[in-house]
């Protein structure tokens, strides 16, 4: 066995896992505190450094939660598929962790051998392929619980994830089209110097579509119908206790990180920021800061918006986001050709026209999909 290869692989992957696991713990704390403050209450603030009385604003809460989940009894329902019950949380965690490797984070300790495995030419499409495995894990979880509500939650979750994958991929296609490569590192490099894709009209529309679809992919509010407590207790992971639930939780948050990371790579410049000429490793800090900004917006949206009903959810994906993203590709295609002409006047005109088209289309689709208000019909109450 080639030891150098092994060590290179370990150097590339282990720090990533450690960093993101720590960030996961911090994010759970941040989410609880931020949601609490939005909801006029204080979040957890008692658990600080363990075995002492020092409560550092509740920063020890994730550790306490982790220890609690480790010690909980692992209950498998009778008649449930034991093998799948065990495999589902693992299958939920693996894709999320795997796609973290495709993000163009150039840590200072990586030499060119260790990143060679992950700087694939098709990194972006690998990302989407592996994120699609999350749907399988959700389905397996719902099926293996032998609980009809879990199964229902699982099927709804799979339907939602599959429906929102299309706008997700189509809005990434725009960026790939503009850059001309599927390589994540190249896409990030094409945006240096504050030339981010989010600053162009089609890029901004694509970013908004991508972000909303990312919220739906990771089952975050307002798309968290499959795991809503007041609807279906916990949906597809109702029957999971203890560490398996912790693995699901971990998988969901790491998926959030991964998709935010892809959004940052594709649209927000991916590591671009001031001070890069002086300290090259500052790009990692900027990348993580941007990921955190997106996570903060996700938490903010969770505290703001009510949950979407399942038919509203599916209608939104197929009737609004899909036509808009296809139109966006068309507009971006024309804009690319216009930019090839290298004439500022034409570029400005293109921007204005594309802005108008996209905004008009979005408003038009909104009006088209606005449900007509009718008096309510009762099926059983007459």
């Amino acid at each position, binding site marked *: 066995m*080639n030891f150098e*290869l092994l060590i290179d692989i370990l150097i590339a992957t282990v720090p990533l896992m450690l960093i993101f696991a720590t960030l996961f713990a911090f994010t759970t704390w941040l989410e609880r505190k931020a949601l609490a403050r939005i909801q006029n209450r204080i979040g957890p603030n008692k658990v600080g450094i363990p075995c002492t009385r020092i409560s550092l604003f509740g920063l020890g809460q994730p550790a306490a939660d982790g220890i609690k989940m480790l010690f909980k009894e692992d209950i498998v329902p009778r008649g449930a*598929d034991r093998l*799948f019950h065990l495999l589902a949380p693992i299958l939920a965690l693996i894709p999320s962790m795997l796609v973290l490797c495709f993000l163009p984070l150039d840590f200072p300790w990586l030499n060119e051998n260790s990143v060679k495995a992950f700087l*694939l*030419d*098709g990194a972006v*499409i*690998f990302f*989407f*392929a*592996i994120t*699609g*495995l999350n*749907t*399988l894990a959700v*389905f*397996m979880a719902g*099926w293996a619980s032998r609980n009809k509500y879990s*199964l*229902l939650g699982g*099927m*709804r979750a*799979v*339907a939602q994830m*599959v429906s929102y*994958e299309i706008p997700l991929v189509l809005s990434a296609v725009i960026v790939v089209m503009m850059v*001309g*490569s*599927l390589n994540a590192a190249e896409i990030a490099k094409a945006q240096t110097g504050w030339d981010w894709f989010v600053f162009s009209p089609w890029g901004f529309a694509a970013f908004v579509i991508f972000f909303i679809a990312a919220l739906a992919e990771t089952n975050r509010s307002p798309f968290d119908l499959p795991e809503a407590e007041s609807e279906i207790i916990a949906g597809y992971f109702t029957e999971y206790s203890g560490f398996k639930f912790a693995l699901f939780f971990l998988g969901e948050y790491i998926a959030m990180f991964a998709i935010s990371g892809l959004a940052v790579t594709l649209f927000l410049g991916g590591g671009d920021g001031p001070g890069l000429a002086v300290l090259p490793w500052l790009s990692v800090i900027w990348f993580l800061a941007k990921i955190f900004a997106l996570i903060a917006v996700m938490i903010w949206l969770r505290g703001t918006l009510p949950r979407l*009903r*399942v*038919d509203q959810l599916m209608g939104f994906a197929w009737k609004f986001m899909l036509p808009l993203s296809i139109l966006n590709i068309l507009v971006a295609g024309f804009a690319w050709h216009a930019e090839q002409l290298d004439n500022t006047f034409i570029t400005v005109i293109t921007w204005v026209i594309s802005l108008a088209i996209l905004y008009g289309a979005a408003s038009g689709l909104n009006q088209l999909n606005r449900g007509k208000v009718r008096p309510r019909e009762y*099926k059983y109450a007459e």
Partner: protein
Amino acid sequence: MNEEIAFWILSAIAVLGALVAVRKRNLIHGVFALLVFFAGLSGLFLLLLAEFIAAVQVLVYIGAVGVLLLFAIMLTERVAGDDGRRMTSRGSFWGLVVAVAVFVVLLLPAIQELPPPEAAQAIDPSVKQLGHKLMNPYVVTLEVLALLLTAALIGAVTAAQGVRMPKEEDSQE
């Protein structure tokens, strides 16, 4: 050397997945074993340095076709799970003969030592080449395939709407 080990491991995964998929009584287990087979195939594509095809294999087969199969099994009553019935297969001898024959025929290029075709070295397996080839000269094929898929989609929606199945997501009440 590493590639050989990888090839054997991936092939073993693929073959085992396929065997389990056809032999398992429990349909859901069978479908998941089929998905393992697809994953093994994707790994084999990676070994051939066709990254795009490997990714698309995972995306389409595992992510879409696999989920489709699972949904189909789930929505059909009493097909999922193991119902304990044992099927008798009376033509198993001739089936085995045909399977061995197909296997030998497929192995023939590997057994005979044919000279490698020269054109193979000139193919650039990158996505850019694939895109160029799809746009010209294979653009008509692409459009026909797209039309076919659209027709299939519309047909599926029509077929689904024609049969009055009770909706499983009735969350209005």
